[in-house]
């Protein structure tokens, strides 16, 4: 049996995103308990009385033969929810204080979700990578080979430039015409208000929007051995600060930032999931399946 929750540092040693995704998802699914809320799309759900205009292909003719009444046979998951992942590929995603940086973690996360969507749920899956521009777009699809295209897109997503949600956001509407599940994977080093303001239209457009907030432990609890010069990876700006500040005030500020972002996200009807890069990916998968179940 595959280990259920593999550490990101272990995944980093696996070559190939497909293998990573398969390892994560298979391990995750094998560990799940069967539940009415979670299942595969061909499971029987209920009978529904036929009304004129319904598709005759769904009529249960066996029941009609016994009772001379026409019923439609309904299944779970018969509706498709296209999954689109908006992957932040800015420079700040390159930060990592241990074996896996945030970009790698985001890749593993995206690959796992793609695998689960395409192979498990048979949903269409697509990818948009962006920084301060749209860098790559792969249309959601269930076609054969889609997984490989998505994984290739993830491989090609190199961190550069800086995060700016406002500029690419106006293109999101164009690419996401069909309602579905939209997952934004980023470290969200922007003001929560700006982030919500930029992404709220996606929700208003009928999408299920979830923010996967990927952070390195060092982003939350930085350790300084002494007064240090800090360099912003995106802007190259430098400041000098002290361990005392990093130990007290900074932590308070980060906590306030995270709380603010979570509250505003919830208030906007969007999902929020904080992922630390030293933790397994199961929280993200569970979040996705919860969303997927809620749409059935």
């Amino acid at each position, binding site marked *: 049996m595959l280990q259920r929750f593999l550490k990101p540092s272990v995944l980093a040693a696996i070559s190939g995103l497909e293998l990573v995704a398969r390892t994560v998802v298979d391990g995750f699914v094998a560990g799940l308990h069967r539940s009415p809320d979670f299942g595969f799309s061909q499971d029987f759900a209920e009978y529904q009385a036929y009304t004129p205009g319904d598709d005759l292909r769904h009529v249960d003719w066996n029941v009609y033969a016994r009772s001379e009444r026409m019923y439609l046979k309904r299944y779970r998951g018969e509706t498709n929810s296209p999954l689109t992942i908006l992957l932040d590929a800015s420079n700040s995603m390159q930060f990592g204080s241990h074996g896996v940086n*945030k970009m790698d973690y985001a890749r593993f996360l995206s690959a796992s979700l793609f695998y689960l969507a395409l192979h498990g749920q048979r949903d269409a899956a697509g990818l948009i990578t962006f920084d301060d521009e749209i860098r790559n777009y792969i249309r959601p699809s269930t076609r054969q080979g889609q997984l490989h295209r998505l994984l290739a897109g993830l491989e090609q997503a190199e961190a550069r430039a800086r995060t700016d949600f406002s500029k690419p956001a106006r293109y999101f509407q164009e690419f996401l015409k069909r309602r579905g599940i939209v997952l934004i994977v980023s470290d969200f080093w922007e003001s929560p208000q700006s982030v919500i303001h930029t992404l709220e239209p996606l929700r208003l457009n009928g999408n299920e929007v979830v923010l996967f907030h990927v952070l390195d432990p060092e982003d939350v609890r930085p350790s300084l051995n002494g*007064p*240090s010069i800090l360099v912003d*990876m995106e*802007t190259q700006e430098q400041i000098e600060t*002290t361990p005392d500040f990093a130990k007290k*005030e900074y932590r308070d500020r980060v906590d306030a930032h995270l709380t603010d972002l979570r509250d505003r996200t919830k208030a906007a009807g969007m999902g929020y999931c904080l992922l630390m890069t030293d933790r397994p990916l199961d929280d993200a998968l569970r979040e996705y399946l919860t969303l997927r179940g809620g749409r059935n």
Partner: protein
Amino acid sequence: MGLFAPWFLAALAGLSLPVYLHLLKRQTSKPKQVSSLMLYESRTQASTRHRSLRYFILLSLRLAMLLLLIVAFANPFINRDAATFSSNRLVLLVIDNSFSMRAGTRLADAKEAAMTVLSGKGAARGQVAVFGSQLQLMTQAIEDQAALRAAVQSVQPGDGHGNFGELARAIRSLADSVHTPIELHFFSDMQRSSLAGNFSDMALPANVKLVTHAVVTKAQPNWTVESVDAPGQVWGKDAKPVHARAVIAGFGTPAATRNASLVVNGKTTAAKTVAVPANGRATVDFAALEVPYGFNRCEVKIDSADAFPADDVRRFAVQRSDPQKALLIHNYGDSRSPLYIGAALSAAAQSAFLLESINVNEAADRQPSNYAFIILSDLNTIPPLLENSLTGYVRSGGSLFIAAGTSAGARLQIPIFGARIAETRDYSRVPDRFMAVGSSDSSYAAVAKAEGWTGVKFFYALAVDPGDARVIVRLSDQTPLLLEKRIGEGRVVLLTSGLDNLTNDFPLNPAFVPFIEQTARYLAGSQRQGGARVVDAYLELRNAREQGQGVEISGPDGKRALTLSQAATAQSFQLTEAGYYQVRLADGRQNLVGVNPDSKESNLDVIPDEVMALWQGRNAQATQEASGAAVSEKTRQSLWWYVMLLVFAAALAESVLASRYLGTQREES
């Protein structure tokens, strides 16, 4: 204030290391990348000031610790007034009790002077010692006046010979263990003969102040019996009369006639008058020293005419005994070696030995212990029974002389002696057709009296492995020729050539007779019998440490001089008193020894004042060099311990501060 080892201050350059490291550490702050500075604030000035302060304290502590450590190694001292140290001062009273202090009232005067010093020493600690030939402490360093006075009163005259070099050595050793100033009061007759050969041997440490109390100020005339030359042993009833020769010496004396008498067992057997020149010596001969059988206590006396009558007598012991038997074992058909050895013994040893010659086949039924020594002359075979009995004989104290010629060369090993025969060397084939003696040990009487065997030609010798044996004579090619080895209580002498005039021409050489005579005396132990010794000489009691046979010594007072444990284990015994010692050695032999004080003690000439001033002045000068000024009243006190305590305190504070800082780092990580 000063430093005992100022060159350690060169290590102060090492202080720059922590300074450099601290500065380096402050300047090597590498920029650190973060995802975003969105939530950070600049805190440069306030934080750096705080950090500098904390690092400054840490740096200061580290510098202080290193500085103090260097100072501790430099060993600082302060000069303190000796007066403030009166309680720490040690007043050491050394009373000379050498033999010359028996003259007149010298010892009593010395004691009286010591009492006077004791009365004025104040609260300082005192210690009493006597110095004869060695320094002997009578008390510990105490303040109890009564105990110190009792110790002074208990000082008895001795018979040793004083040497001020030995006194200075003992004081130097004492000063190493006593770190307080020592005031050394030396009460002596300040004999010139007690001066050390090298004046530097008498140097005293810097913390010792020497005060001499001479009980006499000028030389006193003294006559003495300086030496007596008489045999320690005479043999047989009809032995030729032996004579004794005495030397009468006068030190600082005018020309005079002295009456000398020879006393045997308390009876005057001869008396002579001898004219002693002014400050000179005269010899007196006693032509016939008639002594009865056994050990006899003899002495030569002169009539007492000076203030030092104790040195007017010189003791010696003479033993009269029957001639001792010696056994010569030779090969069947060998008639040469009995001839030469017998002739040599009878010619030289005044009928001391009766030589019995037998061939090896007749030797089995002989009892070796009946003979004073045994000679094995070039035996090709030795019956095992004989070899075992000879080995036991040697181990129990017997003596053996082995001559190994051509017949013995056929063996692999010298019997009893145990040396392996490496090869036989036939020198008749070398260009000179013989080999001469190359080197010889002149301290060995049998060789020294035979003039080192010069001119003796050796044609054949055995090259043996000497092992732990003493090599006395070597041939020119370094072949060991004469060796001696101690086995148990006995001794074996090996000649690696023959005594038969075939393998060498030794028996025909003039050196042969004295060699045989001295070897016979040596092996029979006659040399150690009787005679006279000097006080402080050592008497050899046994050869082998493992031998359990006890020895017995009766001192001049008739009491046993050794405890039971000493009697079972002591290797030697020091003759500390003048008189007659009766000794029973570990090998069972009895002996009587006359012991006399060193004749140097009879010369009552005193050390000149300038020499005494030099002895004391050099000491004062050394103190002056060390303290700088006002010297004799100053003493140096080391501050090493105090500095080390400060080092410890600084190290503790540094550890606490550093661990606090490191603890913060751990919490942050």
